């Protein structure tokens, strides 16, 4: 018998009518979905998360839209340590002094200043106001600095205030806040007693930790200062009028700012917050944002679009740090020397990582640092390294002899978990294996774990980086002083300490720069570290937007003086 239908063979008419029905269901579903979306939008707007869709550059409203990679954790200047807080604070706050578009010191809230070996004196302008119209006084600075130094505040950047007399002791809680060496004889005069001569103290006051806070307002926020737009006061060219966490910040021109003539933009709309650089590039392409960085893989696209690609150094030095603790084989000079003689940083930067804007590292001091008159590295060139495989092998033999070892035990190379760190550590592993026969064990860790291991000394070599805190070679120069907690390899050399002391305590530029030059030479001769590269940044800016400034210290990117050129192409 064969009277059964084959499996699942519907008659055409059934299929047709069922399909028609499906179509109707689909149409119904689409309508329902659209209705639901309207409802959801109404609900979502109740919670208050919305970004305004605006153009990258809005000529009519004199406004721009930009994206940032991470949201500022909070904007209390006494606590802020990260780059995105620094960027926003640089737009909405101004300290005693500021850095001009060509990186020169210029008057900010202080109109005149004077720094001697023992004292710094600032005369405040009488037309500087907070964003609620109240005048900025010397007391606001004193209050801010005391707040930052108070032990309970636990500010990580309090150490930047240590040039002030007794600041360290106050911060460590050994003496009272009233002992801090700052005075305000009247509302517009600020006198600072210095702990020791600090040649660059005037440059330090441009940094966010030195920004003012107004006591009455600060106390009123009950510990939430800087958490939201209305929980803070501003002294800078812009004020934050809206801050939707995770989504956007709206910066509008501050009507009370004293130096209106310098400011052109009416609004800076931080419309997007995303860590994905490719997504930001898409926003740029779609004319949603006016500026974005380019990754190596985006360069082709940028060239294809015929964008004007800009490059700059971001001031950070990356290096291979050795562990100098007595228990480690890397404490041996000859082993470090052997490694130094075979590792070609030019190959790493130009042939291996090939990241745009990066330059091979030659010195502990990056090329941008100021010297006596010009740039430090132009006045005191870094010692030139001649790679030499033969010599390296001789040093390796000496190292084995001194260490009393047949073979060097595998060296632990601590590295971060980024793609770039992978490439670098694998390259190092290969170079040291083929040239010296050294075994390298790569220890890949996420940021916090890497820090923990660096601090406890659980490594032989580590891929480390250092970004500057202030505009003076000392920010790199004191890294390997024996007392510096950031000296994670515990390099301990009285000669180094002596040189750092000279650089710290002298106010004579020539003496100090000579000391830095000696530190540069010592770091090279004793192979304290191997400078790998100076990080670069490659970026594009909307053609109508002019006068955008990139900074190594302070607000980066700085749009405070930017303007829109309607004719720009």
């Amino acid at each position: 018998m064969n009277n059964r239908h084959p499996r699942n063979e519907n008659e055409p008419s059934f299929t047709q009518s069922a399909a028609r029905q499906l179509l109707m269901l689909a149409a119904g579903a689409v309508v329902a979905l659209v209705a639901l979306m309207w409802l959801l939008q109404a609900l979502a707007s109740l919670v208050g998360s919305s970004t305004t869709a605006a153009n990258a550059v809005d000529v009519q409203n004199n406004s721009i839209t930009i994206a940032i990679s991470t949201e500022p954790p909070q904007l209390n200047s006494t606590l802020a340590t990260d780059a995105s807080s620094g960027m926003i604070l640089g737009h909405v706050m101004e300290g005693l002094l500021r850095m001009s578009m060509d990186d020169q010191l210029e008057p900010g809230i202080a109109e005149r200043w004077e720094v001697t070996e023992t004292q710094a004196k600032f005369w405040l302008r009488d037309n500087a106001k907070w964003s609620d119209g109240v005048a900025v006084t010397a007391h606001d600075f004193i209050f801010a600095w005391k707040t930052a130094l108070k032990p309970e505040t636990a500010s990580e950047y309090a150490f930047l205030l240590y040039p002030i007399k007794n600041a360290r002791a106050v911060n460590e809680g050994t003496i009272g806040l009233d002992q801090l060496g700052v005075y305000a004889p009247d509302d517009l005069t600020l006198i600072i007693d210095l702990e020791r001569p600090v040649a660059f103290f005037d440059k330090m006051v441009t940094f966010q930790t030195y920004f003012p806070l107004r006591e009455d307002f600060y106390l009123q926020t009950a510990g939430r200062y800087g958490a939201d737009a209305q929980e803070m006061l501003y002294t800078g060219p812009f004020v934050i009028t809206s801050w939707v966490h995770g989504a956007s910040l709206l910066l509008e021109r501050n009507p009370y700012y004293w130096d209106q003539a310098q400011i052109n933009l009416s609004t800076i709309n931080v419309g997007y917050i995303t860590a994905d650089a490719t997504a930001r590039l898409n926003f740029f392409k779609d004319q949603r944002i006016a500026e974005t960085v380019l990754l190596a893989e985006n360069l082709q696209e940028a060239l294809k679009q015929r964008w004007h690609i800009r490059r700059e150094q971001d001031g950070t030095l990356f290096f291979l740090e050795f562990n100098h603790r007595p228990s480690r084989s890397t404490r041996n000079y000859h082993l470090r020397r052997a490694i130094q003689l075979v590792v070609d940083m030019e190959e790493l930067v130009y042939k291996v990582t090939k990241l745009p804007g990066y330059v091979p590292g030659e010195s502990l001091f990056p090329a941008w640092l100021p010297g006596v008159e010009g740039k430090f590295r132009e006045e005191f060139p870094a010692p030139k390294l001649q790679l030499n495989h033969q010599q390296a092998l001789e040093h390796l033999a000496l190292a084995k002899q001194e260490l009393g070892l047949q073979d060097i035990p595998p060296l632990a190379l601590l590295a971060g978990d980024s793609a770039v760190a992978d490439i670098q550590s694998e390259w190092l592993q290969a170079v040291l294996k083929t040239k010296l026969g050294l075994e390298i064990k790569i220890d890949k860790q996420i940021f916090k774990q890497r820090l923990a291991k660096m601090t406890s000394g659980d490594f032989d070599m580590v891929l480390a980086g250092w970004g500057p805190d202030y505009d003076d070679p000392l920010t790199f120069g004191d890294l390997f002083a024996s007392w510096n907690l950031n000296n994670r390899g515990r390099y301990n050399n009285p000669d180094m300490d002596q040189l750092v002391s000279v650089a710290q305590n002298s106010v004579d530029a020539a003496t100090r720069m000579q000391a830095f030059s000696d530190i540069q030479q010592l770091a090279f001769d004793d192979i304290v570290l191997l400078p790998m590269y100076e990080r670069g940044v490659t970026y594009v800016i909307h053609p109508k937007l002019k006068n955008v400034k990139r900074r190594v210290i302070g607000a980066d990117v700085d749009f405070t003086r930017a303007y829109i050129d309607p004719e720009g192409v």
Partner: protein
Amino acid sequence: MTRYILKRLLQGILTVWFIATATFFAMHAVPGDPLSGDKAMTERIRANLEAKYGLDKPLMTQYGIYLKNIAQGDFGISFTQENRKVNDIIREHFPVSATLGILAILFAGVGGILWGALTALYRNRLPDTIIMFLVILGISVPSFVVAALGQLSMVNLNTFAGFSILPIGGWGTIWHMIVPSMVLGLSTMAYLTRLMRSSMLEIINSDFVRTAKAKGLPATRIFSQHQLRNAILPVITVLGPSIAAITTGGFVVEIIFAIPGLGRYFVEAVQQLDYTVIMGTTVFYGAFLVFMVILVDILYGYVDPRVRVS
């Protein structure tokens, strides 16, 4: 039924407690801590910070305090967003993730059911082949690729059109929701399509459908009342866990489309070892998942009487 629900709820609470405890101890066992940063700090400042966050107490005491706070619904203050309560972070950002998740799951559910029914109807014919090919793509291509491609194609489309058809990122209006929710729901939709197809094929050959046909019922009625309705059951079963997975798994989509959702905080907190945010989001999402599974189980009872009987 009430007893059953109560029992399930108790089990749920126990599960959440277990999740909280396991996360707490695992998190503290990880080397490093939320206070370490690029710049080393003095012992004194470290001690001050530890005191501020209560990290100076023994671990078991911290655990006790922490459980007590959770019971009162207080997750504490974030380590990285120093002024924000974890409760505020969840309250402000979960609705965004939930909106995105609900849309994605609806999109996936409706799409999955319709496409699945369609492929079953046209089995082994051209529509079936094309859709099933796309389904394989949808299941195997990871969401970060789909999200990036989705965004890029919108950019190209906008450039081609000369004006902005749909925004390619950000949040606020329904136009912002369309592309990300489709991207987020795509793999679930593909999965549901397959599920629906096989379930539908099984039903088509079942006795009661044959009986319905023999009775001479109209085709539309057989299709919607007998086939579709029964075939949907397995789809509903997996919907519960999918809702939770989609709502919590939107991390990549949130980053790429610059959406202020909770998923981002969830993942970033782990990288930054932000103890309070890790705990808050894990417990919250854990409770959410457990609740969703219970809800689906209960709903299932209403949809399929056979479950209720057993």
